[in-house]
């Protein structure tokens, strides 16, 4: 039941427990209880909204930064990651397999702001060996949602 509730909420956090209950054919109070518990257990962390900021005319710069970490005794990736994710500019941090170790998504108001964050904050963290910054030029799809307005109705409006 939890998985089904979560799948619905992941796509549309506006759904009420009652609506979810209807859609899944479950008792509403049970769904409400289950959601509350999952919030408590930190399975549900936050209810967010996916926004196309570009359409609002809001300038926003994001960069994906590949971070290489110098392996050290006593200092694992977790510690380095923790130091990085404290910064509010950092939106997400992933441990990666392959040619670098951490993938860091940084957001700022301008190119300069992001660049200086990387140079002054990120690169200077102890055990950070190197950084490679990739600025994001355009978002096509995020969290399974395509940003283009091509999803207009193409079907005939009334059919037998």
């Amino acid at each position: 039941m939890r998985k089904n509730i979560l799948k619905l909420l992941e796509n549309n956090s506006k759904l009420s427990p009652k609506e979810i209950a209807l859609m899944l054919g479950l008792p509403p109070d049970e769904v409400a209880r289950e959601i509350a518990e999952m919030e408590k257990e930190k399975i549900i962390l936050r209810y967010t909204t996916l926004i196309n900021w570009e359409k609002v005319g809001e300038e926003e710069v994001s960069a994906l930064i590949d971070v290489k970490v110098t392996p050290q005794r006593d200092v694992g990736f977790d510690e380095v990651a923790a130091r990085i994710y404290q910064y509010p500019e950092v939106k997400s941090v992933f441990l990666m397999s392959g040619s670098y170790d951490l993938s860091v998504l940084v957001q700022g108001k301008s190119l300069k702001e992001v660049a200086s964050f990387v140079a002054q904050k990120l690169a200077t963290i102890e055990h950070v060996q190197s950084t490679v910054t990739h600025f994001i030029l355009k978002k096509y799809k995020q969290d399974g949602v395509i940003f283009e307005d091509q999803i207009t109705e193409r079907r005939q409006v009334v059919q037998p």
Partner: protein
Amino acid sequence: MSQNRNFEPQRFISPVVKNLRPSGIRRFFDLVANTKGVISLGVGEPDFVTPWHIREACVQALERGYTMYTSNLGMPELRRAVARYLEERFGLSYHPDKQILVTIGASEAVDLALRTVLNPGDEVLIPEPCYVSYKPITLLCGGVPVEVPTTQARNFQPNPQEIEKRISPKTKLLILCYPNNPTGAVLDEDTMMAIARVVEKYNLLVLADEIYAELRYDGPPVSFASLPGMQERTILASGFSKAFAMTGWRIGYVAAHPELLAAMVKIHQYTILCAPIMSQMAALEALQHGLKDISYMVEQYDQRRRLVVSRLRDMGLDCFEPKGAFYVFPSISVTGLSSEEFAERLLKEEKVAVVPGNAFGPSGEGFIRCSYATSLQELMEALNRIERFVARYTRLAKAVAHG
């Protein structure tokens, strides 16, 4: 075009075609198309785009130069895949070379079946409300449509006694479309068995339009042909449009007794030659790797179905619970409006399009068909608008009743 006053096109049009009533939906379509900002629940096809791997199979086929005719019957691989699918999903065994014909959608399958068996004057039993094409095609074949009303009180199940009552020496064929468009009804087991007994007793054929077979919310799909003694008497019309979200591909099939199939192939080879090869390639991919897509879509439809039924009932509309397809067919009698009034005013006042129930037969009067093959967001907005509308007219109807 120059106008020659002596040329009268109408004189050339056959009386059968001239007298054919234009689809009730057509008129309503123009009304909706000319209104801006409409949320349409009048659409009879999936809101999903054909799954990417199926589209890709078509792209690849084109890249490899598959642009030719196929066998009249359709590609042998596709017919084998259809046979395997019918066996696995419905327990039906058909010979891929003698009993399966690939068609231009279930539409062609229905047309072929009727043209193959009907003599002028033959009567065709058609439970209604139903899909709009059976009656006109019957008329085009010189047949006589005999409608069998179904009612919400009996869960839109065709009543075997009502069927039997309408059987005459001229009756040849019974058309069954379940899961049903527009009601969403599926045949319950007892009804199916009883109908099968009537069919046997009067030596009838059945045309089973099972295009919605996969969209079932109460258990696995069932085919009428799988009932004891029914396979040889059933012409099974189906296709890929609804189950795999492939309406625009125009691809379907018909499965029948070898002799009936051979007769249908005669018409098909002269009128159609063969179904388009690109669509056949895509259909093959759908059957080979697309069953998981069906279960995903069915899950989505099911969630919306529950929501829509419950919301409509909360508004005070008497709404039959559909067990298949992607339509709900609520009664609108509390509003005091006719089906067409309801649909037209809802469109004008709240910009939501639904299809008036009487477009599907006289028994559809007092109902509307809403499709839930629409995104959840749109569906919820449409329901909010319908709720406002129904509340307004229910109040009015009550005030009138109390004088």
